């Protein structure tokens, strides 16, 4: 696999446009296909990047759990052939917190949408990032609630149309990388689903890094957000990502706001080291309780 962030361009004339099977189907519950996502939706592309990232990584499939909330992205857990949990709306992170504490050997991945993670689940996000428990959060940001019909989200750009803001939203949206960094995430990146190679590499990095790691994956919702805001179709959205993306690794996350038609700053913004919740916990209890501390059985040999 290329170590470069440059996408590999395949000649569209000589390359076959179809293949006999899905190249990542080993990772999918094929008995659940077809999936529910609309043509042109970016969630499937993100899943493709995710599966290729875990394939490349050193992770053992048995020790990866995927936890989703509710919504279109919430359905990701149901299509992946992993230990997979489709939880309640907004609560993927606290479920994942319990799961990780009970089974630290498990790489816990929270895969959910912007509404799920940052509106109803916003409180859990800030605290999960603060705690720095080892987990990777992959957020598909499609700027609205897809499953319920395109309502305004905490990520909807100012003045964009949504079904519950028919004349345009006047709220300032979250800048997700800035939020994640402020709360203590040790790895923060943003890519669009146009940037498949970069996204795949970034997911692998996030999975392999201890602590709370976060990636925003900007994706089109052609049926609702893209259509309502007259941005064309799914393909047109990808073209706009190509055109508007400004790749700036190490960018100041305060300057990563997303607006309608404005630049989409992409890249890896944060990659720092900070003691994780588990290692902190064990070190501290050993210090204050000495030999009397009894480490949970499932932590033995995993947490040092």
């Amino acid at each position: 696999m290329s170590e470069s962030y440059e996408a590999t361009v395949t000649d569209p004339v000589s390359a076959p446009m179809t293949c006999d099977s899905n190249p990542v189907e080993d990772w999918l519950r094929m008995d659940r296909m077809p999936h529910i996502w609309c043509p042109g939706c970016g969630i499937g592309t993100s899943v493709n990047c995710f599966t290729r990232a875990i394939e490349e990584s050193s992770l053992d499939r048995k020790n990866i759990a995927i936890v989703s909330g509710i919504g279109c992205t919430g359905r990701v857990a149901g299509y992946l052939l992993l230990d997979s949990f489709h939880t309640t709306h907004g609560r993927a992170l606290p479920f994942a917190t319990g799961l990780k504490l009970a089974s630290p050997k498990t790489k816990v991945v929270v895969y959910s949408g912007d509404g799920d993670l940052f509106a109803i689940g916003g409180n859990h996000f800030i605290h999960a990032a603060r705690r720095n428990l080892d987990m990777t959060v992959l957020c598909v940001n499609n700027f609205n609630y897809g499953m319920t019909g395109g309502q305004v989200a905490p990520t909807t750009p100012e003045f964009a149309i949504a079904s519950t803001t028919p004349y345009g939203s006047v709220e300032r949206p979250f800048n997700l990388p800035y939020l994640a960094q402020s709360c203590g995430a040790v790895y923060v990146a943003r890519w669009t689903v146009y940037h498949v190679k970069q996204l795949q590499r970034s997911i692998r990095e996030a999975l392999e890094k201890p602590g709370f790691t976060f990636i925003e994956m900007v994706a089109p919702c052609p049926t609702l957000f893209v259509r309502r805001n007259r941005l064309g179709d799914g393909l047109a959205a990808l073209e706009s990502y190509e055109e508007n993306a400004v790749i700036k690794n190490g960018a100041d996350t305060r300057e990563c706001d997303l607006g309608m038609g404005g630049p989409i700053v992409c890249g890896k913004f944060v990659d720092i080291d900070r003691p994780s919740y588990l290692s902190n916990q064990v070190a501290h209890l050993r210090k204050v309780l000495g030999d009397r501390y009894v480490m949970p059985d499932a932590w033995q040999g995993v947490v040092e």
Partner: protein
Amino acid sequence: MNADPRGVLTGSHFLDGDHAAAEGALAAGANFSAGYPITPSTEVVERLAGRFPFTGGTFIQMEDELAASIAIQGAVWGGSKALTVTSGPGFSLMMEHLGYGIMTETPFVLVDVQRGGPSTGLPTMPAQADMMQARWGSHGDYEIIALAPSSPQECFDLMIRAFNLSEKYRTPVLLMMDECVGHMLERVVIPSPDKIQIEPRRYTKKGPGEQYWPYSLEECNDGDLVPPLTKVGEGHFPHITGLTHDERGYPAMNAKSQAVLLGRLVDKIRKNADDIITIEEDGTDNADVVVVSYGITARVCQPAIAKARAEGRKVGFLRLVTVWPFPEKRIRELAGRVSAFVVPEMNLGQIVREVERCSQGRPKVRGVTHAGGAVHDPEEIYNAIREVMG
């Protein structure tokens, strides 16, 4: 299976009900708890936070009750035995995740130390006004198991029973305490580990890579409606969802799947009601009137019953140790031969409705209500007994 000695604080103690409940959880083998502070329940998790580092357990204080009540379920799928503890407003917030636990068949214990409500109500004072919320508080149709301790000793004993039932029936179990039993100090005897029976979690016998479906009865005996569990890391790759699902655990949103799933979820409790229900009776065999009560109020009844009996009245007593499922078979039997039921409870009339339903209009049913904030004056209960006896 006997209790793991690590959690068992064998001996005779002077404990309040909250601390006794915590010790019951430890004795039952609980090794995970997530909570959020709320009076009058907080002492349970405070004790767990202090004790777990010596017993190989983990406590985490979450950001709210929604988080606490789902973190424990993540922990169960990670292989832990888990509980959360709350009171009134927190119990309301946990209702969605009670439903998630029922739907996904995740065993855990949820403790509600009841206080006066609605809303913030009486944070430091007792009530028994969440009994119907315990039964119906989460949306949709389901059956629930709820136990009501009357003393600190029973907070210990019934906590173990609650865990055992949750494992046996793969479902959340509610321990419905109240502020009085939670804060009352009494002698609590904790037996030695070999005297404590623990229901082990039933895991699938399938090996890694073998086809395991989280809701299949394939590994069950005839009539057993409880599928075996798995946990993460076993190579079974279960899919767990709160959506209506088939035996594979896959979403199956149609009327037929709904009927099949809900039928089994309800039947696994209803058909085992005799095993789940514990009631205590005294003098019901030849009683004219039976006093039906539970929790702290069952103790407050005693002077009233003693006074009436001293006057030669035939007063029986029935205590609901298990409140849900409701012991309707026994109440129906008694309804056929007593002249009245008297139902004292620290609310404005909840369980009395169940007694009325099971009585089917035959004996008189007289509730003795109390809005909460203090226990009944036994005189009110005595007066009700006299009134129904004419």
